[in-house]
């Protein structure tokens, strides 16, 4: 007996007798060749008591600076939104936490109904008629959508906006190699181009899409926070493919579900498949996972969807019930011809998602969206008012925006950290794009109040003032007053 087992010496004796062996060892000796047996103990630390394991895990946790311990504006895919307490309670209920995938529907109606409700909520949010019950997370959902496009039209090219999250782009590339597809990246407009800045370049987009384009993929809002003209991108993708007999490419959008209370839903913008990272909906940060990926589509893609789908039916007595349906898509039935290899997905996290959406409710998701819009706008203007800071683009933003700092981002971040503030994500470290040097991505969730934003503004201004300028190499002394534009009369500029 060790932890969690229950075999007393008496049990063991009775069990071995029933099996008809003299020892436990014999069971193994008769089955595992000696040559592949581990002739020693595992070289792992000894087991610990519960309190000691807890203390160890707590000590590790204490060496992390979480959003509980600093004023954090980190985002770039995962966000410190408030998770209501009732979600914890529900996710911790044994009945939701501990079952397997619902293979026996008669005793799994709870989980199946949650999936059905989740699907309904995702369909409503995205304006698309079909949703599965979750995939792993955001970036791999993009890759999964690429596979759906391949199955759908068999073409080879995936045209992708550079506004996609870099992790999505990278994941898509990794997977596309397996799919035998090519990934073609379309740049964003820059300051020098005409029209809106910081969005998928419409000409390049149209030019990249050809008759062999399987899917056209963009993010809304894009990685730099800019709201894209989703309808125009979809329309362009469809017409760019011309009078391709096999139809237009599949238009895939990576969306941020929490923005969809205020942002036009992908289904209304001509998008065929919407995927996205579900974490903002009632899931914790967890250093990046687990969360869930949402996956919704137009009706025609239903039988090519990856993952579980719950469907409604009746029992032999006519009672309403739910089952896993369209299983002939799936690996356990279709095997090498399955529409995906996914098996275990993210049911519990999706539960968090649908409970969160129920908690927000029809009005709340709009109110929250409006609050995010207003606070994000306020923050963007305040920060862009700092000397040495400018907006990377001036597109509308929802709860995240990119700034260009005239200073080394890492150095600025280090200075802010000393003041207990994490001002955002160093974009270059994520994208490795040379043009992203100096770019800071700032996320404003509803947990960040105006006072928090004001504090960020102050701390960032101080930090930039104290940091070498990137562009000019000029040094400002660490004691210099922070500068606001238009405030130059108040204090002399440092030399």
């Amino acid at each position, binding site marked *: 007996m060790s932890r969690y087992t229950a075999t007393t010496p008496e049990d063991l004796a009775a069990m071995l007798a029933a099996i008809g062996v003299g020892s436990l060892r014999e069971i193994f000796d008769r089955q595992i060749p000696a040559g*592949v047996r581990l002739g020693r103990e*595992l070289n792992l630390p000894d087991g610990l008591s519960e309190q000691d394991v807890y203390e160890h895990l707590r000590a590790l946790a204490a060496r992390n600076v979480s959003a509980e311990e600093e004023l954090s504006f980190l985002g770039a895919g995962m966000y410190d939104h408030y998770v209501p307490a009732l979600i914890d309670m529900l996710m911790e209920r044994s009945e939701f936490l501990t079952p397997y995938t619902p293979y026996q529907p008669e005793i799994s109606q709870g989980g199946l109904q949650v999936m059905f409700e989740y699907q309904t909520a995702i369909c409503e949010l995205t304006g698309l008629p079909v949703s599965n019950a979750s995939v792993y997370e955001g970036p791999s959902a993009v890759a999964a959508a690429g596979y759906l496009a391949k199955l759908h039209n068999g073409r080879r090219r995936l045209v992708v906006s550079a506004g996609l999250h870099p992790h999505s782009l990278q994941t898509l590339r990794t997977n596309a190699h397996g799919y035998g597809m090519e990934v073609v990246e379309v740049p964003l407009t820059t300051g020098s181009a005409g029209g809106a800045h910081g969005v998928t370049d419409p000409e390049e987009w149209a030019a990249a899409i050809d008759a062999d384009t399987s899917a056209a993929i963009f993010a809304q809002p894009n990685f730099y926070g800019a709201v894209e003209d989703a309808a125009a991108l979809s329309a362009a993708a469809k017409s760019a493919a011309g009078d391709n007999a096999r139809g237009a490419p599949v238009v895939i959008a990576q969306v941020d579900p929490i923005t969809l209370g205020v942002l036009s839903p992908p289904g209304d913008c001509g998008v065929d498949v919407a995927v996205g990272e579900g974490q903002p909906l009632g899931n914790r940060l967890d250093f990046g996972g687990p969360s869930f990926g949402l996956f919704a589509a137009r009706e025609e893609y*239903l039988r090519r969807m990856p993952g579980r789908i719950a469907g409604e039916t009746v029992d032999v007595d006519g009672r309403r019930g739910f089952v896993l349906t369209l299983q002939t898509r799936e690996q356990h039935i279709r095997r090498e011809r399955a529409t995906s290899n996914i098996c275990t997905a*993210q049911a519990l996290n999706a539960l968090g998602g649908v409970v969160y959406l129920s908690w927000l409710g029809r009005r709340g998701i709009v109110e929250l969206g409006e609050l995010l819009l207003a606070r994000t706008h306020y923050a963007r203007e305040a920060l862009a008012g700092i000397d040495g800071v400018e907006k990377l683009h001036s597109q509308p933003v929802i709860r995240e925006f990119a700034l260009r700092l005239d200073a080394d981002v890492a150095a600025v971040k280090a200075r802010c950290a000393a003041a207990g503030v994490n001002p955002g994500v160093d974009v270059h470290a*994520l994208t490795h794009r040379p043009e992203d040097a100096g770019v800071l991505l700032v996320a404003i969730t509803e947990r960040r109040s105006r006072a928090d934003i004001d504090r960020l503004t102050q701390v960032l201004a101080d930090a930039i003032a104290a940091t070498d300028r990137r562009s000019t190499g000029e040094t400002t002394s660490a004691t210099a007053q922070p500068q606001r534009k238009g405030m130059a009369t108040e204090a002399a500029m440092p030399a």
Partner: protein
Amino acid sequence: MSATPAIELPLQRQRATTIFQKGSPGRRAFVCPELDVPAVDPETLLPARFRRVEPPRLPEVSEPEIVRHYVGISKRNFDLDSGFYPLGSCTMKHNPRLHERAAALPGHARLHPLQDSERAQGALELMWNLQGALSEISGLPHVSLQPSAGSHGELAGVLLTRAYHEDRGETRYKVLTPDTAHGTNPATVTMAGLEVVKVATNADGGVDVEDLRAKADRDVACLMLTNPNTLGLFDPNISEIAEIVHGVGATLYYDGANLNAVMGISRPGDMGFDIVHFNLHKSFTQPHGGGGPGSGPIAVSERVAPYLPVPMVVRDESGAFDLDYGRERSGGQEERPGSKSIGRLRGFHGNYGCFVRAYAYIRSLGGDGLKDASETAVLNANYLLARLRQKGVAEFLPLAYGELCMHEFVLSGGPMKRDLEIKTLDLAKRLLDHGFHPPTVYFPLLVEEALMVEPTETETKETLDAFADAIAEILAEAGDDPEIARSAPYTTPVRRLDEVAAAKRPVIRQALS
């Protein structure tokens, strides 16, 4: 004596009503934080052409309604904390609540994945330690924690294999899998752009070595194996199999779903495997959550290590931890010179919350404890098998292959179907009335009317006895009247459901008005 009205079971009486059918327009749970910044013209914030016109028809319910609704439907689930769950291949072992407590600590749960490494040292150390433990358990030197579940690990593994061969200038296109393989194996092969070639199973339930030898040619990239396999049998020819596969330059992939049989006893690396995926949600007791989350780290041999996904956790001489993106491809640009990594498989670093739990488990049990877990899992499976024999069950439900088993065993329901006129499905459904989760049914495919039983090590002898009794009772009952099992279950919130109708005209969301 007492009058008894017609009774409908309480849970059956409650007809399924979704949250969308509850509430009333205007109800709400959410109270929005105050607008503390100046109000700005909506058009400035977000021009109308980008704006949603109609709000999504999400539920309009009060907080008490939400709680009642979800607590209520949770009661329509069977779960591991409520009873025996011998679902073969799924390793439904006890989920310690210590793990939930540890994972919920804000230092873990509210840690942003893009926190600077210097300020996420605890998380990186945990990942480092977990990698080390998984390496030791598997006998393979390098670990990536990134894959999100077992099948994601498989995908990583097959892509690694491809990268390995391509890097050597070879384009191998076949992947061998036994016909007992789990469905994710062949599905993965196709997604990775390779082709499945099936290898036959021999009379003992292992790989048919001759068939393997015949099929192992220079086009073979990989053999994917589960060992013990899905019949619960350890392949005695594993060393020979490895030799054949390596002999043609292919890699050997270990589907780790059955690792719970051999922890501390036999290591895939020592058997000759190049790539292993772990299911942290099976062997390492991450709760299944009704279908996830999972986590599917992989461990690999030196030769495939250069192709591992990015980022990797690294440690410098000072003992500080960092994430090495060094092999990452840039933004959307070309590969970095020198990088051989297959790239990323997902966002961020994997399902860290699952790592915390798995790591807590490994530290709780220690090396000894893991071995004891596997030994007890095997003991429990063999005991249950023996107990079923004692109860006379073997006559109708014989063991498909072999005499003993590892951590699980597969019975054939063929004789039962012929002699008692009930199918494995009927038996499974009747078990529901006895308060047990049925075993996995109709898998592996090559066993007629298969019933795959995995008790796990955390069950007591009393539970195993009760389960054996229930099976025996159902068989006896079927001898009297097979119709009882055929129409089972009776006591579940709903009875048998019409799956055909569900698939024919799929209704996959609540109709909203």
